[in-house]
Each structure stands twice: as structure tokens, then as C-alpha cells.
């Protein structure tokens, strides 16, 4: 009896307390009310099911038959919808969540570049950006095939690029082209110039006009082989430039490296103990205004001042803030013997000269002098090397 669609309409389980159940039942069915599953649980109480819309009629009948009715259970779609209606904001939240999730999942959040060895990641990202792809762009707004073509045109070193979207991630797979060596342009006028000061020992000139000879002293920046081909007219003794070439050649020269180093015999050795205090102050109209101040109890100390401009909300104001760090220092008087002093000075000089001399040069000569004075020792180190000093300079 209508139980199939009763769920959609909504049904109610009612409990009735009455002494006149038979009259009540007869009245209900005579009024055309659907009623089913009537079950007597004790002498006066009975449970039955009706449709939700019949509840008012049942109430009237109950009044006539002097019975009390009570709703025990509500079931059906109508009640569910009613319940949901009371939880509007909750449902709104769920819908909002789904929409947001969908929206966010349509955005590229990560760009993963694979396969690049010499081309920097930034360069690829930059050219992606020019084509409208960056972190935060929508996926459906981009035409990946078109972007691929554009990038291939932009970056010549790429032979293949493949863009694919994997969820919120953009995968960029690239294959690099091995570029042909740069073409040597022989028409471009190029001079060969000295890198360092020195005396020329060897000079090989393949192309161009050499301006120096072996044995000449050249200075840094001096042109060794000129790209101009000069024709000297013997009759008039006039020189004129016939043409300019890309000069070729190698020039070797003797180069000096010289280092002086002093060491005093008596000296004060200062070592920091590790204790320090930090003061901060600003200078306004020449007055110091301390922000932080500690008392300086140190006997000997190093003071380091660090000056910064004060900025408020990103604007620089003409006030300097100074951070002052005061380190406690132990002072020790040390006396060196002459031998010790020489040893220290030599060691320092050696370190210094090693920094200056480039690697892979031909060492010709070493000279080492020491001068002992009243209270200090001087050491002079001189290294003579032979090395290539020529390099190309474009005009």
C-alpha cells in the first residue's frame, strides 16, 4: 500500500495511547487515510505508520476518540531536505570547497625542467614566461604546442622541447642541440695585445703586422701584433693601411713576480678572548642616542662599527644606525729571533706569490733576498716565468 513512494513523500511512525483503538482504526480507513503496520505493544499503546501529509487528519481523529498521539520517528526525503535546509551554511561550505579545489587544481603550481645541461633553468623559465606560462597560470588557457614552437624559435640551442601537464605540474622535457663551433670571422679586425708587463722571448706572427721585436720590454695593454696591414711606400716613405685583418699569433715573454714581506722582531700579538658586547645607537644632529648600551670593562679591545641607514616602511630617512661590537682582546708581547722572523716572512711571501702566479707557466728563475735591520727583517722574493702574454682584442 503505497510503500514504494512513501519514502519520497515522507512517512511517520506514530505511537497512540487509547482505550478505543478499534474505533480509531475504523475512522481512519473510512476517511481514506493510508495506515499500515499496526502493532499493539501493550494494553493501551499501539504503533503504526502513516504518510506525513495525513498526520493532521490523524490528529483530528485522535481528538474524537480521546487518544494521545506522539511521533516516534520521521523518515523520508522530505524530512531529509528539511534537515539539510537547516544546515545551509554547511552545504554551502562543501560546495565552496569543491569549487575552490576544482579551481586550484586548474592552475599550474610547479614547473619541472628535465634534460637541460648547458642551458640554465632560468632561461627556459624566462622564455616560458614570455609565452604566458608561469606558476599560477591556468592550464586550459595555454596552447602547449604553440608555446613549444615559440620556445624552439627563441632558444636556438634546443632541438626538442616537450611540454606536458601532469595534474598541477608542468613537465618540460628538453633535448639540447650540440652547437657548431663559433665561426672564426677572419674579416673582423683584431689586434693582439699584451696581458702583462714583460720582456718578449718568442714571437710567432701568422697574420698581421708585428709592432714589437724579441727582447722588447712591453707594458700591459700594449699592441703586439696589429691587425692593420701597412704598406710603406719606399719613394715617399709614407705609410698607409691597405686592409685590416684578424691578426693571428702567439707572444711569449719573461714576466716578473715580486713580493716584499716584513716581519718585526718585537710585536704585540692580539688574540680575541671570545667575549664581546654589542651596542646600538643612532646619530641625530651629531648626538649619539643609544638604543642598547653595555658598559665596556675590557682592558684591551677591538671595536668594529657597522653603519646602516634607517628605513621606516621602506623609506630611507637621513638617520644612521650604528651597531658597535667590542671584542675583548688579550695582548701578548712576543720576541722573535732573527731566524724565526725570517722564516715567518718567507712563508708569508711564498703564499702571496703563489696567489699571483698563474698555473701552467714555465718557471725560469727564483731570487730570494733578505735584509736584516735593527728591529725588523725584510724578505724579497722574485720569480721569473715565461708565459704567453698575448690575447685577442676586438676593435
Amino acid at each position: 500500500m503505497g510503500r514504494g513512494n512513501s519514502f519520497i513523500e515522507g512517512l511517520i511512525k506514530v505511537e497512540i495511547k487509547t482505550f478505543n483503538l478499534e474505533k480509531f482504526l475504523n475512522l481512519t480507513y473510512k476517511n481514506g487515510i493510508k495506515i499500515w503496520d499496526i502493532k499493539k505493544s501493550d494494553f493501551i499503546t499501539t504503533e503504526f505508520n502513516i504518510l506525513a501529509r495525513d498526520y493532521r487528519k490523524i490528529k483530528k481523529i485522535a481528538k474524537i476518540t480521546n487518544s494521545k498521539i506522539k511521533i516516534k520517528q520521521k523518515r523520508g526525503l522530505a524530512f531529509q531536505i528539511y534537515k539539510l535546509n537547516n544546515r545551509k551554511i554547511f552545504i554551502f561550505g562543501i560546495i565552496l570547497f569543491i569549487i575552490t579545489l576544482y579551481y586550484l587544481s586548474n592552475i599550474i603550481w610547479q614547473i619541472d625542467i628535465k634534460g637541460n645541461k648547458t642551458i640554465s633553468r632560468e632561461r627556459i623559465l624566462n622564455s616560458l614566461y614570455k609565452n604566458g606560462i608561469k606558476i599560477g597560470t591556468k592550464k586550459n588557457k595555454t596552447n602547449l604546442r604553440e608555446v613549444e614552437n615559440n620556445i624552439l624559435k627563441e632558444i636556438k640551442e634546443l632541438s626538442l622541447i616537450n611540454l606536458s601537464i601532469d595534474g598541477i605540474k608542468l613537465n618540460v622535457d628538453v633535448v639540447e642541440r650540440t652547437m657548431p663551433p663559433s665561426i672564426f670571422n677572419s674579416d673582423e679586425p683584431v689586434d693582439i695585445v699584451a696581458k702583462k708587463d714583460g720582456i718578449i722571448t718568442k714571437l710567432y706572427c701568422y697574420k698581421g703586422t708585428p709592432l714589437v721585436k724579441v727582447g722588447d720590454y712591453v707594458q700591459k695593454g700594449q699592441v703586439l701584433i696589429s691587425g692593420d696591414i701597412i704598406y710603406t711606400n719606399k719613394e715617399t716613405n709614407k705609410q698607409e693601411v691597405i686592409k685590416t685583418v684578424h691578426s693571428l699569433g702567439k707572444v711569449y715573454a719573461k714576466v716578473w713576480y715580486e713580493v716584499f714581506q716584513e716581519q718585526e722582531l718585537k710585536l704585540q700579538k692580539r688574540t680575541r678572548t671570545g667575549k664581546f658586547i654589542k651596542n646600538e645607537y643612532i646619530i641625530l644632529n651629531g648626538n649619539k642616542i643609544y638604543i642598547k648600551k653595555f658598559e665596556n670593562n675590557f682592558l684591551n679591545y677591538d671595536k668594529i662599527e657597522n653603519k646602516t641607514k634607517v628605513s621606516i616602511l621602506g623609506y630611507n630617512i637621513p638617520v644612521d644606525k650604528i651597531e658597535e661590537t667590542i671584542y675583548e682582546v688579550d695582548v701578548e708581547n712576543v720576541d722573535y729571533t732573527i731566524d724565526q722572523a725570517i722564516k715567518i716572512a718567507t712563508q708569508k711571501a711564498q703564499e702571496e706569490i703563489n696567489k699571483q702566479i698563474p698555473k701552467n707557466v714555465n718557471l725560469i728563475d727564483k731570487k730570494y733576498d733578505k735584509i736584516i735591520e735593527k728591529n725588523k727583517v725584510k724578505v724579497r722574493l722574485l720569480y721569473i716565468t715565461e708565459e704567453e702574454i698575448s690575447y685577442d682584442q676586438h676593435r
Partner: protein
Amino acid sequence: MKRKLKHKISESLEMPKEVVLDIPCIRIIGTEEVEIENHKGIVEYNSNIVRVSSNIGTIQIKGENFIIKEISQDSIVLSGKVENVKLSNE
């Protein structure tokens, strides 16, 4: 006289007797269910006895755990454990 005539008509036309004669039709399914058509209302309902009035008198059904599954103008469907059905013409 009238009753006999109706009886004859129904037999000759092969019409269902309960419709023509307006008498109850009782269908019992095993011991589980009793269906009474053409009833005239419930007289008594308890979990172990149900009495239904009809044109031929009161129908008394005894048993256990009776539930009225459906009730409408034409029929009553009872379920439970049916023990006996008694038709008394008073």
C-alpha cells in the same frame, strides 16, 4: 428471495460471489497471513485475537503476534501466527 436470485445470477454469469453477494472473502496464507475482503470494520484488535465484522457475522481470528499490515475500505491484511479462524453467524 433476493439473495437466491443474486446467487443464481452470479453462478450463471461466473462472476465472483463476494462481489455480487457482498459477503467477505477470506484468504489464509499458511499460518502467517490472513486477508479479509469486504469487511465492515474492526470490532476488536489485540496481539492474540482479532475480530472483524462482516455481512455474515463476526470473523474471529486467534493466534499470536498479530500485526495489521494494511487496512483500507475493502480489505484487512493481518500477519502473525494464525491458529484458528472462526465464522460465527449471530
